[in-house]
C-alpha cells in the first residue's frame, strides 16, 4: 500500500485512527502496541502475503539472536556475526543473487541458471535496522523490549518501507510510553496532519510533475537516442528535483504518520541541495542512512583513526557499499564510487587548504556561491548514474551535458530571444531542434524548474517549519513561517489536501520503494 493511494488515505489511515481513538477512549492503552503491530503487518501484507512470512521470520530470528546477545553479554561476538550473516544473507539472496550470477555468466562465459527473484519490499531497510539493533545490543547501547514491541519497532508501517532507519534508542522508549500513557493528541494531531499533507503534496504535485520532464529524457538516452545538451541538463535537473521531492515527501509523511500516534521519528532531510560541500550534502541527504553507514561501517572499518590514507580508503569503501545498498547494478556502484571520490577530494581540499578547520566554508560570498555551485553540479551529474537504467544511457546523457556533440539551446528558446543568437554562436552554443522534449511548453518548463529550485534552495524545510530539529541562529525566516494553528496554515492544509486527492488519480510509486 502506498501513502499516496486512495486505499491508504480513505480506508487504512482513517480506520486505524478511529480504532486508536476508541482504544484510548476505553482506557485500554496497552492495546496500542498490538493494534499498531497488526496494522503494520497488514500494511505489508497488502503488497505481498507470502513475503509477510519473510518479514516475520526475519523479526523472529533477529529477536532470538538479540536475546542470545543479552544472555551472554560481553561474549556474544559469534552470535553477532551470525546475525549479521543472516541479514546480509537474506539481502544477498533476494537483492544481489541475480546481479552476481549475471556478472559471472557474462564475465566467465558460464551458463548458470539464473531465474528472476522478486525483491521483497523494504528488505534493505528492515535488514539494516536489525543489523544496527544487534550491533547496539553487543555494544550495550540497545534499548530492548518484549517481542511485540521489538516486532513493532522493526515493522512500524510509517518507516517500514523506506525509512527513516531508526535506532532502538530512539523508538523503543516511545513505544514503551505509548503502551502506558495516552499521547497528547491535541498537540500532535494538527501539526502531524499538516505535515502529512505537505509530504503528500511534495510527492503528488511536485515529484510526479518533474518526472514528466525527467522520464522521457532518461528513457530516450537508455534507448540510445541522442539528446541535446539542453535537454540532458533539463532531464538531470528535473530528476534532481523529482528525487528530492519524492523521497523527502515520503519521509515527511512517515514522520507525520508516526507523530499521529505520538511517536517521533528522526528527520531524514535538511535542505540537502543548499550544501556548500559534499560532506555537508551527506549530512543533509538521507540522514539516517548516512548515520548508519558512518556508525556501522565507516567507524568499524577504522574511520579516521589510522592515518589519512586509510581514512580516504574507508570513505571510498563506505560509499561504494552505500551505492550497492541502493541497488544491484553497476550504475549504483559507480554512483557510490563517484560520491566516495567527491568526499575524498573534499577531504584532501580541506587538508591542504584549510588546515584543521574541517568543512569550514570559504570566507567570501563569492567563494561560498562557487563552492555551492560546484557541489550542486557534482550532485546533479552523479544523479544521472543513479537514474539511468543502462551505463550506455548514463554515458550518453553525461556526454551531452558536458559538450560531446557541442553545446546547444533549443531553437524555440532562441526564437524568443533572437538578439542572443549571434553572441551565443560566438561562444560555441548553437541552436538545435529538440529530440525529446519538443512537446512541452518551454515557458512552463522553465518556470516549473525555476520554482522547484527556489523551493529547495530558498524556502524553509519542513524540519524547521515543524520544529523537528533544534533551531539555529540562521532560522529567522523559517521561524517566522513556522507552523502554528491559524487561518493561513489551515487554508494551506485543506487546499493542498484537496489538490492532492484530485491529482492522485494516477498512483505512482515512491522512487525509494525499489531499494
Amino acid at each position, binding site marked *: 500500500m502506498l501513502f499516496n493511494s486512495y486505499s491508504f*488515505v*480513505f480506508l487504512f489511515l482513517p480506520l486505524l485512527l478511529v480504532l486508536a481513538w476508541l482504544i484510548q477512549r476505553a482506557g485500554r492503552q496497552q492495546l496500542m502496541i498490538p493494534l499498531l503491530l497488526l496494522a503494520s503487518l497488514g500494511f505489508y501484507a497488502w503488497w505481498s502475503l507470502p513475503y509477510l512470512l519473510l518479514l516475520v521470520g526475519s523479526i523472529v530470528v533477529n529477536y532470538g539472536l538479540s536475546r542470545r546477545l543479552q544472555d551472554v553479554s560481553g561474549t556474544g561476538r559469534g552470535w553477532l556475526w551470525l546475525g549479521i550473516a543472516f541479514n546480509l544473507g537474506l539481502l544477498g539472496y533476494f537483492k544481489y543473487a541475480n546481479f552476481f550470477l549475471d556478472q559471472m555468466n557474462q564475465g566467465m562465459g558460464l551458463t548458470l541458471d539464473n531465474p528472476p527473484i522478486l525483491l521483497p519490499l523494504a528488505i534493505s531497510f528492515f535488514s539494516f535496522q536489525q543489523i544496527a539493533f544487534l550491533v547496539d545490543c553487543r555494544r550495550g547501547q540497545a534499548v530492548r523490549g518484549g517481542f511485540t514491541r521489538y516486532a513493532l519497532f522493526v515493522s512500524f508501517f510509517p518507516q517500514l518501507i523506506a525509512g527513516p532507519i531508526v535506532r532502538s534508542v530512539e523508538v523503543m522508549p516511545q513505544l514503551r510510553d505509548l503502551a502506558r500513557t495516552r499521547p497528547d*493528541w*491535541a*498537540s500532535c*494531531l*494538527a501539526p502531524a*496532519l*499538516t505535515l502529512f499533507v505537505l509530504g503528500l503534496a511534495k510527492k503528488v504535485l511536485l515529484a510526479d510533475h518533474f518526472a514528466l520532464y525527467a522520464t522521457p529524457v532518461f528513457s530516450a538516452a537508455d534507448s540510445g537516442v541522442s539528446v541535446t545538451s539542453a535537454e540532458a541538463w533539463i532531464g538531470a535537473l528535473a530528476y534532481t528535483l523529482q528525487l528530492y521531492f519524492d523521497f523527502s515527501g515520503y519521509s515527511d509523511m512517515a514522520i507525520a504518520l508516526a507523530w499521529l500516534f505520538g511517536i517521533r521519528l528522526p528527520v531524514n532531510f535538511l535542505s540537502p541541495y543548499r550544501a556548500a560541500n559534499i560532506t555537508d550534502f551527506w549530512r543533509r541527504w538521507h540522514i539516517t542512512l548516512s548515520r548508519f553507514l558512518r556508525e556501522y561501517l565507516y567507524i568499524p572499518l577504522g574511520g579516521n583513526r589510522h592515518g589519512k590514507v586509510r581514512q580516504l580508503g574507508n570513505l571510498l569503501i563506505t560509499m561504494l557499499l552505500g551505492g550497492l545498498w541502493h541497488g544491484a547494478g553497476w550504475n549504483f556502484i559507480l554512483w557510490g564510487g563517484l560520491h566516495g571520490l567527491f568526499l575524498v577530494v573534499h577531504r584532501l581540499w580541506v587538508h591542504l587548504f584549510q588546515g584543521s578547520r574541517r568543512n569550514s566554508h570559504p570566507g567570501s560570498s563569492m567563494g561560498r556561491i562557487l563552492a555551492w555551485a560546484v557541489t550542486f553540479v557534482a550532485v546533479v551529474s552523479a544523479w544521472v548514474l543513479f537514474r539511468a537504467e543502462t551505463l550506455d544511457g548514463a554515458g550518453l546523457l553525461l556526454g551531452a551535458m558536458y559538450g560531446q556533440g557541442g553545446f546547444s539551446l533549443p531553437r524555440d528558446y532562441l526564437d524568443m530571444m533572437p538578439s542572443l543568437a549571434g553572441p551565443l554562436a560566438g561562444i560555441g552554443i548553437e541552436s538545435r531542434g529538440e529530440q525529446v522534449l519538443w512537446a512541452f511548453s518551454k515557458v512552463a518548463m522553465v518556470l516549473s524548474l525555476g520554482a522547484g529550485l527556489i523551493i529547495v534552495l530558498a524556502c524553509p524545510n519542513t524540519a524547521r517549519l515543524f520544529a523537528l530539529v533544534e533551531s539555529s541562529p540562521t532560522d529567522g525566516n523559517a521561524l517566522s513561517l513556522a507552523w502554528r*494553528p*491559524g*487561518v493561513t*496554515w*489551515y487554508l494551506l*492544509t*485543506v487546499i493542498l*489536501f*484537496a489538490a492532492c*486527492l*484530485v491529482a492522485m488519480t*494516477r498512483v505512482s510509486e515512491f522512487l525509494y520503494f525499489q531499494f
Partner: protein
Amino acid sequence: MPPRRYTQLTIASMVLIMGAIMLLSWTWVRQPQTGDLARIGGYVEHSHESQASETRMAFDAPLFQSLDNDWQGDVMDVLVLGDSFSYTGDRYNWVSQLAAATGLRAPYTQRP
C-alpha cells in the same frame, strides 16, 4: 486560533473533502469507462463499473485501407487523419465498424 479548535476544523474539513471526492467519484464511476476513450484518459477499464468483456465487432480483415501504402480507390467518403486507433492491424477498430454500418469508404493516413 486555539489548537483544539484548529484540529477539529482541519479534521472536519478533510473529512468533508474526502466525502465530496467520494461522492463525485461515485457519480463518475456510474458512467461506463470503456473503450478507446478510456485509453486516452489512461484509465483501466477493469477498475471501473463494467468488468465484463467489452462487446466489440470483429472482422476478418479491416474494412478500410491505409492511404499511405495500399489505397487503391480514387473516391473516398471519409478520410481519417492520424488516428492511432485505426491502424490496419486491428480488425476490431471503429473505422471498420463505421464502414460496415454505413458502407462508406474510409481510408486513413498518418502522414503529417
